[in-house]
């Protein structure tokens, strides 16, 4: 039997959301404009820890999305500090996973955390969830993310023209996809 801890990488650990303590950190992120623009295409707003807590409490009452949504947090193994978010949304019927990944503070970027967290996420998707492919939707203005996913083996599959409005103009939303066979080849 393989007893490797599939949630742990060299420096990082994937964990559950901590609805009591994480909101304090995430509220700070939500006031960091570029995090909002990079992580999520939805319109964002500065959000208080209190609002986030209430949102998470509501969600806990409403368990029905649990089979589909895996809302994980990325923490440093060394001191358990929360550094990012990894969300996997499973389309079980099709065998596809939607993935979103974000490192919260600018100071925590460019340390390879994103790459390590993505590797953990992909292993979970393919080896545990037994899904067949992964899709991401990246705003056209996020060149770093486009390069990041391309470097991980994702291929540009669709360009939803002018689907987004941000920074005063329209942008495409780019879909990149990674098939199981491509992931295995790059492993």
């Amino acid at each position, binding site marked *: 039997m393989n007893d490797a801890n599939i949630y742990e990488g060299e420096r990082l650990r994937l964990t559950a959301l901590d609805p009591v303590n994480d909101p304090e950190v995430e509220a700070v992120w939500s006031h960091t404009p570029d995090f909002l623009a990079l992580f999520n295409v939805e319109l964002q707003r500065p959000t208080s820890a209190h609002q986030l807590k209430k949102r998470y409490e509501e969600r806990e009452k409403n368990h029905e999305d649990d089979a589909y949504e895996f809302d994980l947090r990325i923490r440093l193994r060394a001191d358990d500090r929360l550094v990012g978010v990894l969300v996997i949304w499973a389309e079980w019927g099709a065998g596809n996973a939607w993935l979103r990944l974000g490192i919260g503070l600018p100071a925590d970027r460019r340390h390879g955390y994103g790459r390590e967290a993505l590797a953990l996420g992909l292993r979970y998707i393919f080896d545990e969830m037994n899904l067949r492919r992964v899709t991401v939707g990246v705003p056209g203005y996020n060149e770093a993310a486009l390069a990041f996913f391309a470097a991980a083996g994702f291929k540009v599959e669709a*360009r939803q023209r*002018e689907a987004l409005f941000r920074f005063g103009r329209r942008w495409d939303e780019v*879909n990149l996809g990674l098939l199981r066979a491509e992931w295995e080849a790059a492993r």
Partner: protein
Amino acid sequence: MITFSDQLTSDRIRLIAIDAERDGDLMARWSKDAGMMRLFDSDVPRPRVARQSRADTEKWAYRDTAIEWAIQVIDGGAVIGRIGLHRYRTSHRAADLHVGIGDRAHWSKGYGREAVTLLLNHAFGEMDLHRVGLIVFAANERAVALYRKLGFVEEGRWRQFLRRDGADQDILVMGLLRHEWPPAIAQVRRIHHVQVCVSSAELERARAFYLDLLGLPEIHKPESLKDRGGFWAEVGGQQLHVSTEEGVDRTRTKAHVAWQVRALPDWRAKLEAAGCATLDSIPIPGYDRFEARDPFGNRIEFIQAVAG
């Protein structure tokens, strides 16, 4: 025809509010057709009972990010499918379209195309969206052809997105931008009136023919036009203007107006009894028709839609 002011109504269908009870029951009925359901959803088709479908309908159709209508055939009132927008992103002024005609008996009649046209007019005209996107199984050729015809542009494909019957299937991503859709506001709404002419000496006989014999209600002409002779009448919500013109042989042109009626044979008998010769028109599918000339030479066609 679809007009800007009646965006959610066409000649044959209208988009009406979702009713969780009515539409949940219908969804449950449609869910028993697995072959059809797999065209709409990558999820494994499951037959549902009405109680489940009602709950699903409550959950999905009443959300802020989704707007959903039932598709109703005006003639008879049957609800035949659902259409809506999901992933409605207000700040981006973009949303995705989904549509399904649930009852196979209503396929291939153009209802889907009509419903999507109504929705696009609403999305671009009323909601002022910049973009409407959609995804469709690449293997669903009829749907892909319809979207292409309506102007959707293929923007890419999610490779091997699902696996069915032992084969991988792609999903096509398509999109339509506001400037690629003829703006609803620029559409001609409808014909307002047609004019036919008689000589001024025949004007009283023309009144007798159109108002008395054919029974058209007279519309009072504006004061500013009263002195010019002629009269106006209502024809099925539009107007017929009878005016005067001298020295023209109206029997020499085949230009005409066609009136859609019920009880076509009665109209023919009425005209023949009044001394107007009638003539069978060349048959066209879906309609019975004949033609005649009014006593002053203007050709008129009478046409009636027939079932089947």
